[in-house]
């Protein structure tokens, strides 16, 4: 848990480093900071600690989630390329600091023991994201995205809070275990029924969180925001924010409200189906790689939520594995997208369409290969981590005796097939379409990251037990 403190301090030091007028040092410094935080995080391994007056709790599960979050942050930072060294309008020190702060928020979201911490963590993350989304101040797209995100995000926060208040009213506690006890007690008092207070509260909390992980029909902000935000932050949003959001949802639903499964489970089934269908179907038509990734992130929220629904002890590991596989693949995809769209920029505007990738493989085999592996992983094709992610999720779902799950699975399968359709677009563009992308010079770090993520994806696709055993 020292990771939280460390990261906060590092964030502040980053701001100070900004004064040094040496942008070069920021990136390595941030990376080192994150690695240190990661190290501190591992110190909590195999210990169950309560922190800050029982407001946060670390255990192996949370360590794993934090690891995924920090790893994602590390990768995102590593591919940030100092936010363009020559751009006087960018403020890298602040960006890195904010990223570190958001990581803190994300960590809080996976370790919270008290709804206050959930709220604070969520807000740290969200507010940071509002800022970063709008960081490209002169771009109208970025502006629009920021405003949309901000308005809708704060609205969703309001919903969440109202839900928290209602649950508090019903159970007299903010502690997640306390709430569980309160729910049980309420059940006792009311002879098996629950008041509308609790009902509405649970639903509203769930909705508030589902908004963050962009499940349909609360997903509308996602494509626009992901599309408008600078790519690097989109990468962060679609990985760290999503992982934290799912973890938080899973945590609260499985710890506080397992006894009212019917209440949140039934609507969630439809939400999952809607998410899968809308995410995948809409992605098909997209012409922009980036926007496609936004829809893809929606669809993956659907798969992730299946594990939340499945409610088995093994679900932990499936959720972790899926999140990890998804995060790595998504970051790889964004890494490729960023360099290629910049290299293919027209009139100073980055070209984020699929056409920009045409013929990528000819001069940039590494980029093309990484892209391919990441797309295969996202599509859930064997040899890649994504396959096992899907596999574990499906296994979880199947072990649930409810027959509803079989239908979810059928939809999931159909939608996976649809998914292949759009995930292959970039591959086809890179390898088979005619076009020319000039050789893109990559920094050694960038190359290293691409190789690392690609190797990880394949490695996890061959031997999922490497991490599955840990989870």
């Amino acid at each position, binding site marked *: 848990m020292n990771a939280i403190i460390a990261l906060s301090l590092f964030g502040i030091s980053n701001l100070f480093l900004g004064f040094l007028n040496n942008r070069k040092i920021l990136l390595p410094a941030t990376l080192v900071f994150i690695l240190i935080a990661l190290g501190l995080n591992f110190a909590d391994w195999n210990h169950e600690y309560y922190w800050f007056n029982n407001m946060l709790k670390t255990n192996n599960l949370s360590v794993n989630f934090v690891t995924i979050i920090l790893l994602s942050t590390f990768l995102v930072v590593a591919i940030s390329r100092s936010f363009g060294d020559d751009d006087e309008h960018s403020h890298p020190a602040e960006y890195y600091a904010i990223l570190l702060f958001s990581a803190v928020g994300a960590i809080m979201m996976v370790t919270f023991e008290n709804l206050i911490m959930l*709220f*604070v963590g969520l807000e740290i993350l969200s507010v940071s994201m509002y800022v970063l989304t709008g960081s490209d101040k002169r771009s109208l797209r970025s502006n629009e995205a*920021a*405003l949309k995100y901000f*308005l809708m995000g704060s609205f969703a926060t*309001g919903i969440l809070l*109202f839900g928290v208040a209602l649950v508090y009213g019903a159970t007299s506690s903010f502690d997640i275990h306390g709430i569980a006890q309160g729910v049980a007690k309420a059940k006792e008092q009311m002879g098996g029924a629950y008041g509308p207070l609790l009902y509405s509260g649970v639903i509203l909390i769930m909705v508030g969180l589902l908004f963050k992980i962009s499940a349909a029909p609360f997903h509308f902000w996602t*494509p626009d925001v992901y*599309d408008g935000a600078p790519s690097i932050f989109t990468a962060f949003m679609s990985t760290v924010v999503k992982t934290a959001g799912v973890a938080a949802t899973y945590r609260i639903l499985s710890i506080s409200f397992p006894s009212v499964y019917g209440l949140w489970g039934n609507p969630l089934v439809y939400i999952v189906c809607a998410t899968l269908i809308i995410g995948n179907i809409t992605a098909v038509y997209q012409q922009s790689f980036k926007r496609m990734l936004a829809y893809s992130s929606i669809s993956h929220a659907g798969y992730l939520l299946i594990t939340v629904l499945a409610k088995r002890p093994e679900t932990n590991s499936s959720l972790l594995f899926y999140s990890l596989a998804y995060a790595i693949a998504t970051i790889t995809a964004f890494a490729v997208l960023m360099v290629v769209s910049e290299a293919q920029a027209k009139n100073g505007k980055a070209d984020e369409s699929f056409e920009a990738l045409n013929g990528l493989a000819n001069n940039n085999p590494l980029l093309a290969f990484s892209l391919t592996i990441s797309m295969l992983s996202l599509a859930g094709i064997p040899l890649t981590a994504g396959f096992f992610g899907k596999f574990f999720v499906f296994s979880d779902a199947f072990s649930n005796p409810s027959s509803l799950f079989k239908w979810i699975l059928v939809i999931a399968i159909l939608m996976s097939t649809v998914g292949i359709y759009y995930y292959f677009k970039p591959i086809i563009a890179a390898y088979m379409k005619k076009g020319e992308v000039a050789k893109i010079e990559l920094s050694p770090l960038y190359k290293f990251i691409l190789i690392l993520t690609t190797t990880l994806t394949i490695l996890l696709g061959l031997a999922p037990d490497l991490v599955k055993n840990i989870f």
Partner: protein
Amino acid sequence: MQQIPDVIREIPLNYYVWFSAALFCIGIIGVLTRRNAIIIFMSVELMLNSVNLLLVAFSSYKADPAGQIFVFFIMAVAAAEVAVGLAIIVMIYRNIQTIDVGLLNKLKW
């Protein structure tokens, strides 16, 4: 001299709940009907305040300070949100000289 919680308890809890819910709904309606970003934002704040009210009421009725502590957190965080939110709105105003959210629909499909 009555204790403040006692004063609060003079009004039935249900009233607080319904009142907060009404306030919350007004906030939502405000968000839905207004096109001015600032007013929408204010409506959101209204929603947050209804939550605060509700939390305080519950807190008093249950004689549990946690609810009121939560309120402080909400207020603090809301302040931060306001700062960021207004900055964003200003930034947009600088760019397009309006804060009508209806006009911000370039990102779509």
